[in-house]
């Protein structure tokens, strides 16, 4: 799939402001041509998470529009199309071992949402 390449730049960059986020839900940002789903969970530590927006099973850019929650404590988003779960920290699909979406390092610093280097 051609849409899940690495984000090229290694520098940190500002994605958006805190008030662009939606508490307990997701938004999508376009970064170096990649769609990144950013989730804001104000009660959690850390409060922001980012994974790719492309749903490899539903084959559409929709993960930012899923419902977030947990499975036995593991933070996940459920795809709005066919409801498979993706781990917010690793991008791993819970239902299918061989499916994984990219995960990104994001941080909330002051009012800014910052994207750091890609997770390994």
């Amino acid at each position: 799939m051609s849409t899940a390449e690495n984000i090229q730049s290694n520098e940190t960059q500002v994605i958006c402001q805190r008030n662009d986020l939606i508490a307990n839900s997701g938004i999508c940002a376009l970064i170096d041509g990649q769609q990144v789903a950013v989730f804001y969970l104000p009660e959690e530590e850390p409060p922001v998470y980012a994974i790719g927006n492309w749903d490899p099973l539903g084959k559409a850019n929709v993960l930012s529009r899923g419902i977030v929650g947990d499975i036995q404590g593991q933070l996940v988003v459920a795809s709005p199309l066919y409801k498979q779960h993706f781990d917010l920290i690793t991008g791993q699909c819970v239902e299918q071992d061989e499916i994984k979406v990219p995960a990104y390092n994001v941080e909330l610093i002051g009012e800014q949402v910052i994207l750091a280097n890609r997770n390994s």
Partner: protein
Amino acid sequence: MSLINVVVIGNGMVGHHYVDQLAGSGVAAKITVIGAEPRPAYDRVHLSEFFAGRKPEELALTTREHYKKLGVNAHFGDAVVAIDRDAKVVTTEGGRTFRYDKLVMATGSYPFVPPIPGANLSNCLVYRTIDDLGMIQAKSKNAKIGVVVGGGLLGLEAANALQNLGLQTHVVEFAPGLMGVQLDGGGSTMLRRKIEALGVQVHTSKATQTIEETHGKGNTRLVMNFADGETLATDVIVFSAGIRPSDQLAKDCGLEVGPRGGINIDYHCRTSDSDIFAIGECALYGGMIFGLVAPGYRMAEVAVSQLSGEHNSFKGADMSTKLKLLGVDVGSIGDSHGKTDGAISYTFSDEREEVYKRLIVSADGKTALGAVLVGDCSDYDTLLQYYLNGIELPANPEAMILPASEGGAPLLGAAALPATATICSCHNVSKGDIISAIDGGGCSLADVKSCTAASTGCGGCAALLKNVVDDEMAARGMEVNTAICEHFNFTRQELFHIAKVESIKSFEDLIKHHGTGRGCEICKPAVGSILASLWNDYILEEKHVGLQDTNDTFLANMQKNGTYSIVPRIPGGEITPDKLIVLGEVGKKYNLYTKITGGQRIDLFGARVEQLPDIWKELIDAGFETGHAYGKALRTVKSCVGSTWCRYGVQDSVSMAIYVEDRYKGLRSPHKLKSAVSGCTRECAEAQSKDFGVIATEHGWNLYLCGNGGMKPRHADLFATDLDDETLIKYIDRFLMFYVRTADRLQRTSVWLDNLEGGLDYLKEVIIDDKLGICTELEAQMNSIVGTYQCEWKTTIEDPEKLKRFRQFVNSDAADKRVVFVQERGQPRPATEEETDQLLAKSA
């Protein structure tokens, strides 16, 4: 067969239980019951729910009609004032006389008001009957401060009520600690800490000497003067300083009473006159008054058995209790003060979490004698079973009360309990009884409840009962768990009741107090729907947004390529040419695929998320509203053209369909709702395949309920015939609200009815005969929802904050490049994956 005359004095909980048991026992008796209160028996144990909005009729344990059906001669609002034991006649205040062969005294008890000067002032109240609570509510309307005299179990319940009524609440207790009867010093101190943290001020070791009235400008207040010289000003005082048995009648006719009151009874519940029984809180057995309902019920059954020839005995009762006071869990089992000779106790106290536990064991460490639990009652059921059944304790009994992380004992599995173990003490149901109920065909918790009555009293045994039932069903390979998901151990119906009773308005509150974890895509939308059914807030309120499925969040249905469809409401399928033109123009402008749906309306497909607000603005300006095609809500009400045009039509089905659709639009429900109205029996609108369908007759309307098309079609059942407009709507209101309240998550009305115990007949009783006495409430709730309707799309496009959400990217105006269309039959359709790759490669 000659009937014996049985007269029962008092129609409280125990008096009622006696009547009910006797009527069902087969004893040839003519039963008369005389109650001083103006209404038939009600659930005093749950009295406080009156303040949470439970109506007197919902607290009722019986009705006049029910008594009539049983052949019981019942008189309410009249008290017995004299018993003539020689003539065997009782006389009432109202001058009626009744002859008896056997007399049963179930006069209960009354609140003790200490003889303090001023205690009879008009704002000094008590807490025992529905009328008392009505009075407290009335007097609290303009009050700011409330004082409860008495820090026992009932006093704290009263304090909770005052606090919920918005009063600044104080508890004044004569003794040095709260709930001295049930708790030890440590437990009592912890309880006080927790209660004070909730804003209730506690004053212990305080003796009230006088109460005076002061008159300010336009208001009258009370001042309490204490023995230590301090004073406390208040508006309302509720006395809850203990109860006293109502034994005056017994004394007057020379029956034996105890030195501190209470009618003496033997183990057959007979008083000193062998033709007179006493049961419940007026009775004294073994020097003890049993101030709980379970022992009272037991006495009632024992007294009935004397007439049926079974001659069972009353053997005293366990007074262990578990309850939530002001939101604090408190439990007390057996010898909570450790007074038994040689008793050893283990204490666990965690001041950070505010938990206190004490376990009292026998000298040899083998059996549990008692326990005190404050702040965490999760061990109560287990400890109670060890205590009641004398189960041998583990070698390290302290593990029973230690937190699990500290090596606490695993919970005593239901499987480990002996068949004789009492599971529900209110109704004396043992584990063996539950097993027989399951063997007898019961296959759900509800079945077991209705067949054994377990857990229908105080409800304290609910968790344990569920464990036993689950365990037994699992052992038989039956499906068990009814929990909605891993985050809530409740069904949707239970969550609905919790949210309603506790006025919970957000998911956060609900999961914090009644669930675990953060929720998921199952419970969040379900709770979102419950909250919407209850409070009808705008669903994109900040606190609700994260709960909604993407369809609800974006107020549109997501399609396979991530775009959305748009379905404006077209009530009854009727649409003007001008509006049709608007739909056509919008479809053309935004390049949308246009289709007539199976529900008599028009769907526009292929809108990108960022286009939705613009499209909806144009539609709303043209007078359209959202069609809720995305919601678990009312969808369409189809119509046929009806009497206006059709030569066979007998009623105006289009007008009715439009009325129905406008009335219920926006109603959130466990699953989608569909309806249709046909103008005659030819049924061109297919009303019999709908959740509620209406078919015109010469005289009015026939109502059909619980039909379904879809995966498993079901014909709707004929529910009522020849209704006038008003009755039709009334029944639909009740039906829908009853469904909304009681159905499971994603359960269509068809499946709901198939699972409803009692089926269609029961549904008729509830909706037509108002068997549950809830119809007024159902109608009121529907009216409030109808009255607070808003078109969610209108609200959304008017709010710039909400519109922020409708962007593909938070940081760019670009469009999603993988949303690509190709043309087919003159309209766009989503490109396949290969088509998309090809097109993207070409344009790159």
